[in-house]
Protein backbone atom coordinates (compact mmCIF):
# COMPACT_ATOMS: atom_id res chain seq x y z
CA UNK A 1 0.00 0.00 0.00
CA UNK A 2 1.69 3.15 -1.21
CA UNK A 3 2.12 6.23 0.89
CA UNK A 4 -0.13 9.20 0.25
CA UNK A 5 -0.85 12.59 1.72
CA UNK A 6 -4.08 12.96 3.58
CA UNK A 7 -6.25 15.98 4.08
CA UNK A 8 -9.81 16.79 4.98
CA UNK A 9 -11.94 18.96 2.76
CA UNK A 10 -13.90 21.61 4.62
CA UNK A 11 -16.00 22.63 1.65
CA UNK A 12 -16.96 21.35 -1.77
CA UNK A 13 -14.98 24.16 -3.31
CA UNK A 14 -11.82 23.34 -1.44
CA UNK A 15 -12.22 19.66 -2.20
CA UNK A 16 -12.52 20.38 -5.89
CA UNK A 17 -9.42 22.54 -5.78
CA UNK A 18 -7.49 19.56 -4.49
CA UNK A 19 -8.71 17.41 -7.30
CA UNK A 20 -6.23 16.25 -9.87
CA UNK A 21 -5.27 13.01 -11.53
CA UNK A 22 -3.13 12.05 -8.55
CA UNK A 23 -5.80 12.70 -5.96
CA UNK A 24 -8.53 10.42 -4.74
CA UNK A 25 -11.52 11.56 -2.75
CA UNK A 26 -12.49 9.21 0.01
CA UNK A 27 -15.99 8.87 1.41
CA UNK A 28 -16.78 5.30 2.46
CA UNK A 29 -13.43 4.06 1.27
CA UNK A 30 -14.73 0.62 0.36
CA UNK A 31 -13.46 0.75 -3.22
CA UNK A 32 -10.48 3.01 -2.67
CA UNK A 33 -8.86 1.16 0.23
CA UNK A 34 -9.51 -2.21 -1.40
CA UNK A 35 -7.80 -1.14 -4.61
CA UNK A 36 -4.98 0.81 -2.98
CA UNK A 37 -4.07 -2.30 -1.01
CA UNK A 38 -3.96 -4.24 -4.28
CA UNK A 39 -1.77 -1.48 -5.76
CA UNK A 40 -4.38 -1.01 -8.46
CA UNK A 41 -5.10 2.58 -7.40
CA UNK A 42 -2.08 4.68 -6.53
CA UNK A 43 -3.20 8.10 -5.36
CA UNK A 44 -0.51 10.52 -4.23
CA UNK A 45 -3.06 12.30 -2.09
CA UNK A 46 -6.34 11.31 -0.49
CA UNK A 47 -8.90 13.91 0.42
CA UNK A 48 -11.49 12.95 3.01
CA UNK A 49 -14.79 14.51 2.01
CA UNK A 50 -16.89 13.14 4.84
CA UNK A 51 -17.19 16.51 6.55
CA UNK A 52 -18.97 18.03 3.56
CA UNK A 53 -22.65 18.83 4.04
CA UNK A 54 -23.90 16.33 1.48
CA UNK A 55 -25.85 13.97 3.70
CA UNK A 56 -29.45 15.00 3.23
CA UNK A 57 -32.31 13.59 1.20
CA UNK A 58 -34.82 16.19 0.08
CA UNK A 59 -37.98 16.19 -1.99
CA UNK A 60 -37.88 18.84 -4.72
CA UNK A 61 -40.89 20.88 -5.73
CA UNK A 62 -41.17 19.00 -9.03
CA UNK A 63 -41.51 15.68 -7.22
CA UNK A 64 -37.95 14.53 -7.75
CA UNK A 65 -35.83 13.28 -4.88
CA UNK A 66 -32.42 14.84 -4.35
CA UNK A 67 -29.92 12.64 -2.55
CA UNK A 68 -26.75 14.03 -1.07
CA UNK A 69 -23.57 12.43 -2.34
CA UNK A 70 -22.57 11.24 1.12
CA UNK A 71 -25.83 9.56 2.10
CA UNK A 72 -24.83 6.01 2.90
CA UNK A 73 -26.24 3.05 1.03
CA UNK A 74 -27.87 1.86 4.25
CA UNK A 75 -29.52 5.16 5.03
CA UNK A 76 -30.72 5.53 1.47
CA UNK A 77 -32.14 2.02 1.32
CA UNK A 78 -34.12 2.60 4.51
CA UNK A 79 -35.13 6.19 3.83
CA UNK A 80 -38.93 6.42 4.13
CA UNK A 81 -39.37 8.31 0.87
CA UNK A 82 -37.16 5.91 -1.01
CA UNK A 83 -38.99 2.91 0.39
CA UNK A 84 -42.34 4.46 -0.50
CA UNK A 85 -41.62 5.92 -3.92
CA UNK A 86 -38.58 4.02 -5.10
CA UNK A 87 -38.79 0.53 -3.62
CA UNK A 88 -36.75 -0.64 -6.61
CA UNK A 89 -33.81 1.43 -5.44
CA UNK A 90 -34.18 0.24 -1.88
CA UNK A 91 -34.24 -3.38 -3.02
CA UNK A 92 -31.23 -2.95 -5.25
CA UNK A 93 -29.22 -1.28 -2.52
CA UNK A 94 -30.03 -4.02 -0.03
CA UNK A 95 -29.12 -6.68 -2.59
CA UNK A 96 -25.61 -5.27 -2.80
CA UNK A 97 -22.57 -6.05 -0.68
CA UNK A 98 -22.98 -6.61 3.06
CA UNK A 99 -24.48 -4.69 5.95
CA UNK A 100 -21.06 -3.38 6.92
CA UNK A 101 -20.15 -2.25 3.44
CA UNK A 102 -23.52 -0.58 2.94
CA UNK A 103 -22.99 1.28 6.20
CA UNK A 104 -19.74 2.66 4.83
CA UNK A 105 -20.50 3.07 1.15
CA UNK A 106 -22.02 6.33 -0.06
CA UNK A 107 -24.26 7.25 -2.93
CA UNK A 108 -21.49 8.98 -4.85
CA UNK A 109 -19.03 6.24 -4.02
CA UNK A 110 -21.39 3.65 -5.42
CA UNK A 111 -21.60 5.63 -8.65
CA UNK A 112 -17.80 5.52 -8.76
CA UNK A 113 -17.52 1.82 -7.88
CA UNK A 114 -14.97 0.02 -10.00
CA UNK A 115 -15.16 -3.30 -11.75
CA UNK A 116 -14.58 -6.66 -10.08
CA UNK A 117 -12.77 -8.09 -13.12
CA UNK A 118 -10.06 -10.27 -11.56
CA UNK A 119 -7.55 -9.24 -14.19
CA UNK A 120 -8.20 -5.58 -13.42
CA UNK A 121 -7.66 -6.30 -9.76
CA UNK A 122 -4.38 -8.16 -10.32
CA UNK A 123 -1.42 -5.98 -11.22
CA UNK A 124 0.29 -9.03 -12.67
CA UNK A 125 -2.29 -9.25 -15.46
CA UNK A 126 -2.78 -7.27 -18.64
CA UNK A 127 -5.66 -4.82 -18.37
CA UNK A 128 -6.43 -1.89 -20.63
CA UNK A 129 -8.58 -0.31 -17.97
CA UNK A 130 -5.84 -0.31 -15.37
CA UNK A 131 -2.97 0.25 -17.76
CA UNK A 132 -4.09 1.55 -21.15
CA UNK A 133 -2.62 -0.37 -24.02
CA UNK A 134 -1.48 -3.36 -21.98
CA UNK A 135 -4.11 -5.71 -23.38
CA UNK A 136 -7.02 -7.62 -21.92
CA UNK A 137 -6.33 -10.90 -20.17
CA UNK A 138 -10.02 -11.42 -19.52
CA UNK A 139 -11.10 -11.82 -23.13
CA UNK A 140 -9.45 -15.22 -23.51
CA UNK A 141 -9.21 -15.93 -19.81
CA UNK A 142 -11.75 -16.92 -17.22
CA UNK A 143 -14.56 -14.59 -18.14
CA UNK A 144 -17.55 -16.02 -16.34
CA UNK A 145 -18.21 -12.72 -14.60
CA UNK A 146 -17.73 -10.62 -17.71
CA UNK A 147 -19.95 -8.58 -19.93
CA UNK A 148 -22.26 -9.74 -22.67
CA UNK A 149 -23.32 -6.24 -23.56
CA UNK A 150 -21.40 -3.04 -24.15
CA UNK A 151 -17.99 -4.67 -24.36
CA UNK A 152 -15.25 -3.82 -26.78
CA UNK A 153 -12.13 -5.51 -28.05
CA UNK A 154 -10.29 -3.69 -25.31
CA UNK A 155 -12.52 -4.34 -22.32
CA UNK A 156 -15.33 -6.58 -21.18
CA UNK A 157 -15.34 -5.67 -17.51
CA UNK A 158 -18.73 -5.62 -15.83
CA UNK A 159 -19.98 -2.63 -13.91
CA UNK A 160 -20.54 -4.15 -10.48
CA UNK A 161 -23.12 -1.90 -8.85
CA UNK A 162 -26.65 -2.96 -7.97
CA UNK A 163 -27.72 0.56 -7.04
CA UNK A 164 -26.80 1.81 -10.49
CA UNK A 165 -28.98 -0.79 -12.18
CA UNK A 166 -31.98 0.54 -10.32
CA UNK A 167 -30.93 4.09 -11.20
CA UNK A 168 -30.74 3.18 -14.85
CA UNK A 169 -34.36 2.08 -14.67
CA UNK A 170 -35.56 4.97 -12.54
CA UNK A 171 -33.64 7.71 -14.30
CA UNK A 172 -31.56 10.25 -12.46
CA UNK A 173 -29.36 13.29 -12.79
CA UNK A 174 -25.98 13.83 -11.22
CA UNK A 175 -24.90 17.19 -9.90
CA UNK A 176 -21.18 17.75 -10.25
CA UNK A 177 -19.24 20.65 -8.87
CA UNK A 178 -15.83 21.88 -9.92
CA UNK A 179 -13.83 25.08 -10.28
CA UNK A 180 -16.07 26.16 -13.15
CA UNK A 181 -19.13 25.74 -11.00
CA UNK A 182 -21.95 23.24 -11.03
CA UNK A 183 -23.10 21.12 -13.91
CA UNK A 184 -25.55 18.33 -14.36
CA UNK A 185 -25.14 15.03 -16.14
CA UNK A 186 -27.86 12.53 -16.89
CA UNK A 187 -27.19 9.27 -15.10
CA UNK A 188 -27.42 7.40 -18.40
CA UNK A 189 -24.54 9.48 -19.76
CA UNK A 190 -22.33 9.33 -16.71
CA UNK A 191 -20.78 5.92 -17.37
CA UNK A 192 -19.39 5.67 -20.91
CA UNK A 193 -18.97 2.46 -22.83
CA UNK A 194 -15.38 1.24 -22.70
CA UNK A 195 -14.71 1.43 -26.44
CA UNK A 196 -11.00 1.87 -26.90
CA UNK A 197 -10.71 3.99 -23.76
CA UNK A 198 -11.77 1.62 -20.98
CA UNK A 199 -9.71 3.58 -18.47
CA UNK A 200 -12.25 6.41 -18.77
CA UNK A 201 -15.01 5.20 -16.50
CA UNK A 202 -17.17 8.25 -15.98
CA UNK A 203 -17.91 11.78 -17.01
CA UNK A 204 -16.25 13.39 -14.05
CA UNK A 205 -13.20 15.59 -14.27
CA UNK A 206 -10.44 15.10 -11.75
CA UNK A 207 -11.26 18.43 -10.16
CA UNK A 208 -14.97 17.74 -9.95
CA UNK A 209 -16.95 16.23 -7.15
CA UNK A 210 -20.34 14.54 -7.26
CA UNK A 211 -22.48 16.52 -4.85
CA UNK A 212 -25.92 15.08 -5.42
CA UNK A 213 -27.98 12.51 -7.25
CA UNK A 214 -31.51 13.52 -8.17
CA UNK A 215 -33.94 10.75 -8.99
CA UNK A 216 -36.51 11.33 -11.69
CA UNK A 217 -40.01 11.69 -10.34
CA UNK A 218 -41.58 8.32 -9.58
CA UNK A 219 -43.29 6.72 -12.56
CA UNK A 220 -46.56 6.97 -10.71
CA UNK A 221 -46.40 10.73 -10.62
CA UNK A 222 -47.17 11.13 -14.30
CA UNK A 223 -49.79 8.45 -14.27
CA UNK A 224 -51.44 8.60 -10.91
CA UNK A 225 -54.21 6.25 -11.96
CA UNK A 226 -51.86 3.60 -13.20
CA UNK A 227 -51.05 0.62 -11.17
CA UNK A 228 -47.30 0.74 -10.73
CA UNK A 229 -45.02 -2.04 -9.69
CA UNK A 230 -41.34 -2.64 -9.58
CA UNK A 231 -38.93 -5.41 -8.82
CA UNK A 232 -35.19 -5.92 -8.53
CA UNK A 233 -34.02 -9.47 -9.02
CA UNK A 234 -30.42 -10.43 -8.52
CA UNK A 235 -29.20 -13.87 -9.54
CA UNK A 236 -25.93 -15.21 -8.18
CA UNK A 237 -24.35 -18.42 -6.96
CA UNK A 238 -25.00 -18.03 -3.26
CA UNK A 239 -27.91 -16.33 -1.56
CA UNK A 240 -26.20 -13.14 -0.43
CA UNK A 241 -22.98 -11.14 -0.37
CA UNK A 242 -21.97 -11.81 -3.94
CA UNK A 243 -21.88 -9.76 -7.10
CA UNK A 244 -24.60 -10.40 -9.63
CA UNK A 245 -24.23 -12.92 -12.40
CA UNK A 246 -27.30 -11.27 -13.82
CA UNK A 247 -29.77 -8.84 -12.36
CA UNK A 248 -32.84 -7.06 -13.63
CA UNK A 249 -34.49 -3.87 -12.44
CA UNK A 250 -38.04 -3.40 -13.60
CA UNK A 251 -40.64 -0.68 -13.22
CA UNK A 252 -44.02 -1.05 -14.84
CA UNK A 253 -47.25 0.89 -15.08
CA UNK A 254 -50.33 -1.13 -15.90
CA UNK A 255 -53.66 -0.06 -17.25
CA UNK A 256 -55.76 -3.09 -16.67
CA UNK A 257 -53.76 -5.90 -18.19
CA UNK A 258 -51.83 -3.68 -20.55
CA UNK A 259 -48.39 -2.24 -19.91
CA UNK A 260 -48.45 1.51 -20.35
CA UNK A 261 -44.94 2.24 -19.27
CA UNK A 262 -41.91 0.03 -18.74
CA UNK A 263 -38.41 0.51 -17.49
CA UNK A 264 -35.89 -2.27 -17.66
CA UNK A 265 -32.23 -2.23 -16.71
CA UNK A 266 -29.71 -5.02 -16.36
CA UNK A 267 -26.78 -5.66 -14.09
CA UNK A 268 -23.99 -8.21 -14.02
CA UNK A 269 -23.97 -8.58 -17.80
CA UNK A 270 -22.87 -5.22 -19.14
CA UNK A 271 -19.97 -2.82 -19.04
CA UNK A 272 -22.21 -0.09 -17.63
CA UNK A 273 -25.56 -0.02 -15.85
CA UNK A 274 -27.58 -1.21 -18.82
CA UNK A 275 -30.86 0.34 -19.79
CA UNK A 276 -32.69 -1.97 -22.18
CA UNK A 277 -34.62 0.71 -24.06
CA UNK A 278 -35.69 -1.40 -27.01
CA UNK A 279 -37.03 -4.06 -24.74
CA UNK A 280 -38.93 -1.39 -22.84
CA UNK A 281 -40.49 -0.11 -26.03
CA UNK A 282 -41.49 -3.64 -26.96
CA UNK A 283 -43.36 -4.00 -23.70
CA UNK A 284 -45.43 -0.85 -23.92
CA UNK A 285 -48.91 -1.55 -25.13
CA UNK A 286 -48.55 -5.26 -24.63
CA UNK A 287 -50.46 -7.38 -22.19
CA UNK A 288 -48.55 -8.05 -18.99
CA UNK A 289 -48.07 -11.75 -19.64
CA UNK A 290 -45.34 -14.29 -20.13
CA UNK A 291 -45.16 -13.98 -23.91
CA UNK A 292 -44.54 -10.25 -23.67
CA UNK A 293 -41.92 -10.75 -21.02
CA UNK A 294 -40.10 -13.39 -23.01
CA UNK A 295 -40.11 -11.23 -26.10
CA UNK A 296 -38.68 -8.32 -24.14
CA UNK A 297 -35.98 -10.58 -22.76
CA UNK A 298 -35.05 -11.76 -26.25
CA UNK A 299 -34.78 -8.19 -27.43
CA UNK A 300 -32.76 -7.10 -24.41
CA UNK A 301 -30.16 -9.78 -25.05
CA UNK A 302 -30.28 -9.63 -28.85
CA UNK A 303 -26.89 -7.93 -29.04
CA UNK A 304 -25.22 -10.13 -26.46
CA UNK A 305 -21.68 -11.17 -27.35
CA UNK A 306 -20.96 -14.23 -25.23
CA UNK A 307 -17.45 -15.38 -24.44
CA UNK A 308 -16.00 -18.75 -23.50
CA UNK A 309 -17.31 -18.87 -19.94
CA UNK A 310 -20.24 -16.47 -19.76
CA UNK A 311 -22.59 -17.69 -22.47
CA UNK A 312 -24.88 -19.07 -19.77
CA UNK A 313 -25.55 -15.53 -18.65
CA UNK A 314 -27.47 -14.87 -21.85
CA UNK A 315 -30.09 -17.32 -20.68
CA UNK A 316 -29.71 -16.30 -17.06
CA UNK A 317 -30.25 -12.63 -17.84
CA UNK A 318 -33.35 -13.51 -19.83
CA UNK A 319 -34.62 -15.47 -16.89
CA UNK A 320 -33.95 -12.55 -14.58
CA UNK A 321 -35.85 -10.23 -16.90
CA UNK A 322 -38.86 -12.50 -17.29
CA UNK A 323 -39.14 -13.17 -13.58
CA UNK A 324 -38.60 -9.53 -12.60
CA UNK A 325 -41.26 -8.45 -15.07
CA UNK A 326 -43.64 -11.03 -13.71
CA UNK A 327 -43.02 -10.01 -10.13
CA UNK A 328 -43.25 -6.31 -10.91
CA UNK A 329 -46.59 -7.07 -12.58
CA UNK A 330 -47.73 -8.91 -9.50
CA UNK A 331 -46.61 -5.98 -7.38
CA UNK A 332 -48.54 -3.59 -9.58
CA UNK A 333 -51.66 -5.70 -9.28
CA UNK A 334 -51.25 -5.68 -5.54
CA UNK A 335 -51.15 -1.91 -5.58
CA UNK A 336 -47.44 -1.46 -5.92
CA UNK A 337 -46.53 -3.20 -2.74
CA UNK A 338 -43.62 -5.37 -3.59
CA UNK A 339 -43.76 -8.39 -1.40
CA UNK A 340 -41.45 -10.58 -3.41
CA UNK A 341 -37.97 -11.27 -2.28
CA UNK A 342 -35.48 -9.42 -4.38
CA UNK A 343 -32.57 -11.74 -4.18
CA UNK A 344 -31.95 -15.14 -5.46
Amino acid sequence: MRAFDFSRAESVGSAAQHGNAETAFVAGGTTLLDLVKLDVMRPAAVVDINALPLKTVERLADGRLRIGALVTNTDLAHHPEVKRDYPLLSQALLAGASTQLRNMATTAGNLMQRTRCPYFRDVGSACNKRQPGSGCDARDGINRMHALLGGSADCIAVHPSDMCVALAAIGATLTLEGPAGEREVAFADFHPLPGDTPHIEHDLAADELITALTLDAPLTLDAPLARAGSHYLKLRDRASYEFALASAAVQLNLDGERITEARLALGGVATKPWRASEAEAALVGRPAELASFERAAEIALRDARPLAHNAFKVDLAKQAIVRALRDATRAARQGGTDTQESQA
Partner: protein
Amino acid sequence: MMDDSVHSPTRRGTPAPTLNVNFTLNQQPISLEVAPNAVLLDVLREQLGLGGTKKGCDHGQCGACTVHVDGQAMNACLRLAVMCEGQHVTTVEGLAREGELHPVQQSFLACDAFQCGYCTPGQMMSATALLNDARIGSDDAAVKEAMSGNICRCGAYKNILTAIQQARATLADDATRRAGEGTP
Protein backbone atom coordinates in the same frame (compact mmCIF):
# COMPACT_ATOMS: atom_id res chain seq x y z
CA MET B 1 25.39 -17.33 14.56
CA MET B 2 25.18 -13.59 14.96
CA ASP B 3 28.86 -12.88 14.41
CA ASP B 4 29.76 -9.92 12.27
CA SER B 5 30.45 -11.98 9.21
CA VAL B 6 26.79 -12.51 8.51
CA HIS B 7 24.29 -10.12 7.28
CA SER B 8 23.99 -7.19 9.59
CA PRO B 9 20.55 -5.70 9.92
CA THR B 10 20.62 -2.07 8.99
CA ARG B 11 17.49 -0.08 8.75
CA ARG B 12 17.20 1.70 5.49
CA GLY B 13 14.84 4.39 4.29
CA THR B 14 13.35 7.31 6.08
CA PRO B 15 10.46 7.33 8.51
CA ALA B 16 7.12 8.24 7.02
CA PRO B 17 5.32 11.37 8.23
CA THR B 18 2.51 10.79 10.66
CA LEU B 19 -0.75 12.50 11.45
CA ASN B 20 -2.47 12.97 14.74
CA VAL B 21 -5.93 11.45 15.15
CA ASN B 22 -8.24 11.69 18.15
CA PHE B 23 -11.21 9.45 18.66
CA THR B 24 -13.05 7.51 21.31
CA LEU B 25 -12.08 3.86 21.50
CA ASN B 26 -14.21 1.62 23.67
CA GLN B 27 -15.43 4.69 25.53
CA GLN B 28 -11.95 5.99 26.21
CA PRO B 29 -10.55 9.04 24.44
CA ILE B 30 -7.44 8.23 22.50
CA SER B 31 -4.84 10.28 20.66
CA LEU B 32 -2.55 8.61 18.17
CA GLU B 33 0.13 9.34 15.66
CA VAL B 34 -0.54 7.29 12.55
CA ALA B 35 0.70 7.15 9.00
CA PRO B 36 -1.73 8.81 6.58
CA ASN B 37 -2.34 5.47 4.90
CA ALA B 38 -2.64 3.48 8.13
CA VAL B 39 -5.68 1.23 8.12
CA LEU B 40 -7.86 1.14 11.23
CA LEU B 41 -7.58 -2.64 11.45
CA ASP B 42 -3.79 -2.60 11.45
CA VAL B 43 -3.70 0.25 13.95
CA LEU B 44 -5.97 -1.67 16.31
CA ARG B 45 -4.04 -4.92 16.00
CA GLU B 46 -0.45 -3.76 15.67
CA GLN B 47 -0.26 -0.29 17.18
CA LEU B 48 -2.79 -0.59 20.01
CA GLY B 49 -2.43 -4.28 20.73
CA LEU B 50 -6.15 -4.87 20.41
CA GLY B 51 -6.09 -8.23 18.68
CA GLY B 52 -9.76 -9.02 19.16
CA THR B 53 -10.59 -7.45 15.82
CA LYS B 54 -9.50 -10.06 13.30
CA LYS B 55 -8.01 -9.98 9.85
CA GLY B 56 -9.49 -12.61 7.58
CA CYS B 57 -9.15 -11.08 4.14
CA ASP B 58 -8.11 -7.44 4.46
CA HIS B 59 -10.51 -6.50 1.66
CA GLY B 60 -14.00 -6.25 3.10
CA GLN B 61 -14.87 -9.76 1.97
CA CYS B 62 -15.19 -11.74 5.21
CA GLY B 63 -16.40 -9.51 8.07
CA ALA B 64 -13.90 -10.73 10.67
CA CYS B 65 -12.75 -7.15 11.26
CA THR B 66 -16.20 -5.73 11.95
CA VAL B 67 -16.21 -2.90 14.49
CA HIS B 68 -18.72 -0.21 15.36
CA VAL B 69 -18.07 3.31 14.16
CA ASP B 70 -20.59 5.65 15.72
CA GLY B 71 -22.72 2.61 16.40
CA GLN B 72 -22.68 1.28 12.85
CA ALA B 73 -21.04 -2.01 11.88
CA MET B 74 -18.14 -1.38 9.54
CA ASN B 75 -15.15 -3.24 8.12
CA ALA B 76 -12.08 -1.90 9.91
CA CYS B 77 -9.91 -3.18 7.07
CA LEU B 78 -11.37 -0.65 4.64
CA ARG B 79 -11.16 2.40 6.85
CA LEU B 80 -8.24 4.75 7.23
CA ALA B 81 -7.42 5.36 10.86
CA VAL B 82 -7.29 9.11 10.25
CA MET B 83 -10.89 9.01 9.07
CA CYS B 84 -11.97 8.13 12.60
CA GLU B 85 -11.25 11.63 13.88
CA GLY B 86 -13.92 12.56 16.39
CA GLN B 87 -15.74 9.26 16.05
CA HIS B 88 -16.72 6.58 18.53
CA VAL B 89 -15.12 3.26 17.73
CA THR B 90 -16.09 0.10 19.57
CA THR B 91 -14.28 -3.20 19.23
CA VAL B 92 -15.01 -6.60 20.73
CA GLU B 93 -12.84 -5.59 23.68
CA GLY B 94 -15.45 -2.95 24.47
CA LEU B 95 -18.49 -5.24 24.44
CA ALA B 96 -18.28 -6.51 28.01
CA ARG B 97 -18.92 -3.88 30.67
CA GLU B 98 -17.50 -3.97 34.18
CA GLY B 99 -16.43 -7.54 33.80
CA GLU B 100 -19.84 -8.76 32.73
CA LEU B 101 -20.26 -10.25 29.31
CA HIS B 102 -22.64 -8.51 26.95
CA PRO B 103 -25.87 -10.48 26.43
CA VAL B 104 -24.67 -11.31 22.92
CA GLN B 105 -21.44 -12.74 24.30
CA GLN B 106 -23.40 -14.69 26.88
CA SER B 107 -25.71 -16.16 24.29
CA PHE B 108 -22.80 -17.01 21.97
CA LEU B 109 -21.27 -18.98 24.84
CA ALA B 110 -24.54 -20.63 25.84
CA CYS B 111 -25.46 -21.59 22.26
CA ASP B 112 -21.94 -22.70 21.25
CA ALA B 113 -22.15 -20.16 18.46
CA PHE B 114 -18.52 -20.53 17.41
CA GLN B 115 -15.81 -23.09 16.92
CA CYS B 116 -12.37 -21.72 16.18
CA GLY B 117 -13.48 -18.30 17.40
CA TYR B 118 -11.68 -16.31 14.75
CA CYS B 119 -14.72 -14.85 13.01
CA THR B 120 -16.55 -14.57 16.31
CA PRO B 121 -15.69 -11.00 17.32
CA GLY B 122 -16.90 -9.82 13.92
CA GLN B 123 -20.04 -11.94 14.18
CA MET B 124 -20.81 -10.45 17.58
CA MET B 125 -20.14 -6.88 16.48
CA SER B 126 -22.53 -7.35 13.57
CA ALA B 127 -25.03 -9.03 15.87
CA THR B 128 -24.97 -6.25 18.46
CA ALA B 129 -25.35 -3.63 15.74
CA LEU B 130 -28.29 -5.35 14.14
CA LEU B 131 -30.04 -5.85 17.46
CA ASN B 132 -29.83 -2.08 17.91
CA ASP B 133 -31.08 -1.30 14.42
CA ALA B 134 -34.86 -1.15 14.16
CA ARG B 135 -34.58 -1.01 10.37
CA ILE B 136 -33.45 -4.62 10.22
CA GLY B 137 -36.21 -7.17 10.60
CA SER B 138 -36.25 -9.53 13.56
CA ASP B 139 -37.26 -12.69 11.73
CA ASP B 140 -34.67 -15.37 11.01
CA ALA B 141 -34.50 -14.61 7.30
CA ALA B 142 -33.83 -10.94 7.90
CA VAL B 143 -31.16 -11.71 10.48
CA LYS B 144 -29.45 -14.20 8.19
CA GLU B 145 -29.44 -11.69 5.35
CA ALA B 146 -28.12 -8.91 7.57
CA MET B 147 -25.41 -11.20 8.95
CA SER B 148 -24.26 -12.45 5.57
CA GLY B 149 -21.26 -10.14 5.57
CA ASN B 150 -19.73 -12.28 8.29
CA ILE B 151 -18.34 -15.54 6.99
CA CYS B 152 -17.87 -18.44 9.40
CA ARG B 153 -15.90 -21.16 7.69
CA CYS B 154 -16.39 -23.50 10.64
CA GLY B 155 -20.05 -23.23 9.67
CA ALA B 156 -21.47 -22.42 13.10
CA TYR B 157 -24.17 -20.36 11.41
CA LYS B 158 -27.10 -22.21 12.89
CA ASN B 159 -25.93 -21.61 16.43
CA ILE B 160 -25.03 -18.00 15.67
CA LEU B 161 -28.59 -17.37 14.53
CA THR B 162 -29.95 -19.04 17.63
CA ALA B 163 -27.62 -16.98 19.81
CA ILE B 164 -28.66 -13.72 18.18
CA GLN B 165 -32.34 -14.45 18.62
CA GLN B 166 -31.73 -15.53 22.20
CA ALA B 167 -29.83 -12.31 22.91
CA ARG B 168 -32.69 -10.36 21.34
CA ALA B 169 -35.06 -11.93 23.84
CA THR B 170 -32.66 -11.25 26.73
CA LEU B 171 -32.23 -7.64 25.73
CA ALA B 172 -35.98 -7.20 25.42
CA ASP B 173 -36.48 -8.71 28.89
CA ASP B 174 -33.80 -6.43 30.30
CA ALA B 175 -35.45 -3.43 28.71
CA THR B 176 -38.81 -4.45 30.14
CA ARG B 177 -37.28 -4.93 33.56
CA ARG B 178 -35.53 -1.60 33.45
CA ALA B 179 -38.76 0.08 32.41
CA GLY B 180 -40.49 -1.64 35.32
CA GLU B 181 -37.81 -0.55 37.75
CA GLY B 182 -38.17 3.00 36.50
CA THR B 183 -41.82 3.04 37.48
CA PRO B 184 -42.31 4.15 41.07
